[in-house]
């Protein structure tokens, strides 16, 4: 009757094709994957950053006892970085991950303090913030001294050149992460729950199809859809908002590989939710428990370094934080996948945990 042997590949691809068509026609998938991230990009690209921290590298030779340093220490926006070598600091300065390097010298003669500041073109705006903070301090210190006496401190500035780090370079990778997160968690949870509840999967089981083909087919469709969405977001960001792609196509490909890895992990959360949800109305709250903390705490909108320390510990445990960090390194610093092994390792740990739970909680019927 069936002269040809049964082909699992054919069955898998048939499911992938059906699922892909279905996703394209589902309004919520398109809205979450494309519309929301693009709206956020447009809005945030225009209003600029909130929760600003100016990262100031402190040179090893810097005087930290004098009044200038103490005054700077009490300014909230200033975040001192003291644990990097001189060379790292210089590198980071030209990349813009450090906004300035400060080196205060105590002099034998007057003025008592010379403040050497190196700014970077890579972070012009934050440099300006520090500049105004310093001139404020300078004014206060010198005014406190005797009238007509020479000033207590002077400021010497230099500016290194570097690639300009635009806000879009920060916001776009975060939005990409958000798009992948919601597509992976919500999409997967909804699809598998509704296929189970409407007995579509049961009907599938009356055919010779394997369970692995069903999961794989669905995964292929979702990854294909989300990567097309990611590509679209990257291209819109690049051509309309000047998003930096250091190595062009190679950078885009690296970003897509990272997206696929992130998506596979987030789909695992989706499998778990589809297993424990009783009906479709319990999917959104459960999904929000997974997505909201990551949405807010993983550096999607605000840099994690703007958070208080205790919150940073939580942020640094979340998978999206590491996906976002890896994405930014690849996009802006031109890192290859081999340069983000730290992030990939943490994502791998998440992968193992999530799928260990998913295998236990997933239900077919």
């Amino acid at each position, binding site marked *: *009757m*069936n002269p*040809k042997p*049964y*082909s699992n590949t*054919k*069955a898998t*691809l*048939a*499911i992938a*094709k*059906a*699922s892909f*068509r*279905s996703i394209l*026609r*589902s309004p919520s998938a398109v809205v979450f994957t494309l519309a929301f991230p693009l709206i956020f990009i447009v809005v945030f690209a225009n209003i600029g950053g909130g929760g600003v921290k100016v990262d100031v590298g402190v040179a090893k030779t810097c005087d930290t006892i004098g009044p200038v340093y103490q005054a700077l220490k009490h300014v909230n926006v200033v975040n001192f970085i003291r644990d990097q070598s001189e060379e790292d600091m210089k590198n980071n300065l030209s990349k813009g991950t450090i906004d300035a390097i400060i080196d205060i010298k105590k002099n034998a003669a007057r003025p008592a303090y010379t403040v050497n500041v190196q700014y970077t073109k890579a972070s012009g705006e934050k440099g300006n913030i520090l500049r105004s903070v310093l001139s404020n301090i300078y004014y206060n210190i010198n005014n406190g001294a005797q009238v007509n006496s020479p000033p207590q401190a002077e400021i010497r500035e230099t500016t290194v050149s570097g690639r300009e780090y635009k806000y879009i370079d920060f916001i776009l990778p975060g939005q990409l992460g958000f798009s992948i997160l919601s597509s992976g968690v919500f999409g997967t949870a909804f699809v598998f729950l*509704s*296929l189970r509840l*409407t*007995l*579509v999967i*049961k*009907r*599938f*089981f*009356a*055919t*010779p*199809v394997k369970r692995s083909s069903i999961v794989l087919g669905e995964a292929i469709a979702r990854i294909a859809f989300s990567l097309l969405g990611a590509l679209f977001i990257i291209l819109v960001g690049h051509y309309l908002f000047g998003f930096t792609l250091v190595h062009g196509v190679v950078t885009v490909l690296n970003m897509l590989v990272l997206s696929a890895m992130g998506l596979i992990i987030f789909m695992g959360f989706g499998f778990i939710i589809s297993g424990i949800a009783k009906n479709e109305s319990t999917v959104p709250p459960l999904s929000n428990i997974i997505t909201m903390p990551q949405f807010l705490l993983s550096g999607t909108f605000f840099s994690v370094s703007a958070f208080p320390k205790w919150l940073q510990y939580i942020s640094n445990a979340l998978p999206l934080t590491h996906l976002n960090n890896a994405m930014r390194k690849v996009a802006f610093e031109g890192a290859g996948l081999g340069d983000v092994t730290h992030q990939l390792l943490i994502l791998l740990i998440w992968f193992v945990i999530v799928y260990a739970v998913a295998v236990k909680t997933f239900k077919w019927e």
Partner: protein
Amino acid sequence: MAKQPIITVKNLVKNYGDFAAVKGISFEVYEGEIFGLLGPNGAGKTTTLEVIETLREKTSGEITVDGFNIETDKNSIKQRIGVQLQAAGYYPNLNLSELIDLFSGLYGIDKTPMEMLEKVALTDKAKAKYKDLSGGQKQRFSIATTLINNPRIIFLDEPTTGLDPQARRNLWDLIREIRDQGTTVVITTHYMDEAEVLCDRVAFVDGGHIIGIDTPDHFIDQLVASGFERKKEVKLANLEDVFINLTGKEWREG
């Protein structure tokens, strides 16, 4: 035609935890017949079907389908049967031809959607979504998906429940056509008039047991021979005949 069994069920038992849904059922379905499983809700009809369809594990008993053992040859059986489930849905957002494409892939068989839709007179609905079909069209489409792999046997679980008289008779014609082309049909129903005109043989199931298997004619003759008489005199037509006569017998989609 020699009566060749195509399905053999021996002492089938199915327990759900402490609850015994099927308590030792035995029967045979012959090749090329329409076999009806009749009985009240909760009698164990659907459970029995789903065990034969390889969708549920049996607790004990022996089942052979087209020569294959249900325990050792699930996949060979799946390739030889077509299954219509009670109240099963279809993949969301797809139209009928895309759904047929999907099932062709699942069965690993190349069938064009039009070829299948033609068999159930739904070619004009090729671009429609399943949820937008009428009750009768939905059932016809479900039957189309069971025929994709040229099955030896198809299982229909309450296919006519909720249909209007025209759609029901229309479905009977379709089921007879399928039987006449050599496919064995196993069907469950609550309508005795349907079983009487459609089924070659029926089994009554109650409380997890089979309480009788025979042709509808025999059952009726036996009852009459035992002295049973209907309270009301039987007329040459019934109200459904009147309904069909008044509203016309052409295919209507309601």
